[in-house]
């Protein structure tokens, strides 16, 4: 990769590739470019790719940080705080940084890929006004298919290709995820259970969700996690909505699906993606939900919000 020797800000680069050889050679050049100027380097890709990068780096492998993105980033909303923490750490050390991130893999469901795209969009929001660094985002063009690769392209302000790094003329800009992804969620399954709630029925709602979670095949521990997640969403509805909302629950294959709908509006695009400070008073609810669930989807428009969560049975 030929990069601008003096980047004047954060550069979020799409890197579509067609074969593993090109993935590896570009990644290695990018990593070595960082190591040569004493930058911190974090590689957040699937485990198999970590292995191939490590062995190709040889003696330098130990000077790079690695995170298995399919583990840490199972819920894509948990990825951004990892980058924030890494950037803060490097800044504290007074070192530059760079990273490689490949959360969008063929194993992901369509819903999870949509959330990965929202995450990529928020990366720009999170880092655009901060110090200069580069995040290279590979995507397997052959495995993922043209529509997904094209969307991935749209959320990156820069593109890395054989020609080098270029600004991306089709970048969508600094949009909030509530503006950019207009597609509504597919409707809940027919026969989904439904419960209306308000402040006075939160305890009963939790009992209903616990019974639902067990019947849907969750272990007692995971069912308790689901209860907590739904409760946090219900509390948000009571706090920010017209006083209550509607819970729906159903199952799709091996996944337990729940959603909470209320008459409310999400305004903070980064909600649930900033690690709360030790004594912060509010704004922990969605952070907790993001830690608990395998996928979290927030949609908010026309005064109605829905948060859908997934938990694997």
């Amino acid at each position, binding site marked *: 990769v030929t990069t601008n020797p003096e980047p004047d800000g954060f550069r979020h680069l799409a890197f579509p590739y067609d074969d593993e050889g090109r993935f590896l050679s570009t990644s290695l050049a990018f990593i070595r470019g960082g190591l040569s100027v004493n930058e911190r380097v974090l590689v957040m890709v699937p485990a198999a790719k970590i292995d191939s990068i490590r062995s190709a780096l040889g003696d330098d492998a130990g000077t790079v940080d690695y995170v298995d993105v399919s583990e840490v980033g199972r819920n894509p909303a948990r990825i951004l705080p990892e980058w924030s923490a890494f950037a803060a750490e490097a800044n504290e050390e007074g070192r530059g940084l760079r990273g490689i991130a490949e959360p969008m893999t063929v194993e992901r469901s369509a819903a999870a890929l949509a959330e990965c795209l929202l995450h990529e969009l928020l990366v720009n929001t999170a880092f655009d006004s901060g110090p200069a660094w580069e995040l290279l985002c590979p995507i397997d063009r052959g495995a993922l298919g043209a529509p997904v690769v094209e969307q991935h392209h749209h959320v990156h302000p820069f593109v890395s290709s054989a020609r080098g790094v270029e600004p991306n003329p089709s970048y969508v800009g600094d949009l909030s995820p509530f503006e950019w992804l207009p597609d509504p969620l597919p409707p809940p399954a027919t*026969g*989904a*259970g*439904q*419960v209306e*709630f308000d*402040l*006075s*029925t*939160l*305890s*009963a*709602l*939790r*009992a*209903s969700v616990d*019974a*639902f979670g067990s*019947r*849907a095949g969750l272990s007692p521990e995971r069912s*308790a996690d689901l*209860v*907590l997640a739904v*409760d*946090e969403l219900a*509390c948000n509805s*009571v*706090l920010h909505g017209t006083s209550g909302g509607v819970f729906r*629950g*159903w*199952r799709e294959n091996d996944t337990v699906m729940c959603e909470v709908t209320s008459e409310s509006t999400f305004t903070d695009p980064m909600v649930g993606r900033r*690690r*709360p*400070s*030790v*004594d912060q*008073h*509010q704004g*922990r*609810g969605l*952070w*907790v939900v993001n*830690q*608990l669930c395998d996928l979290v989807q927030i949609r908010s428009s026309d005064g109605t919000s829905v948060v859908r969560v997934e938990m694997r049975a």
Partner: protein
Amino acid sequence: LTLSGVVDISPMEQLPLEIVAGDGVFTLRGELDMATADRLSEIVEGTTGNLVLDLEGITFINSSGLQAVLTAQKAARARGADVVLRRPSRVVHRVLELASMTETFVIEE
């Protein structure tokens, strides 16, 4: 898998949070959530020294519950005292961890 049969969730009769005072310790049993969090501020008002909360019997807590404890801590610290969480139950530990609050409170096991 549906929730049919459990759609009627009229408010339950039992008190979801029980607070027992004794020997300078408040023992909390049941659910500390958004609906019951206000009851914590009531006991904070009448306390002068440290506010010791025995949380062994807490069966449910969420971020609203922890927020209420944080408010109590702020009030206690303003008068030179503190909040002490005694023997937090497993669910309390779990939510403290999830909410990134493991360093927030003085904990006594």
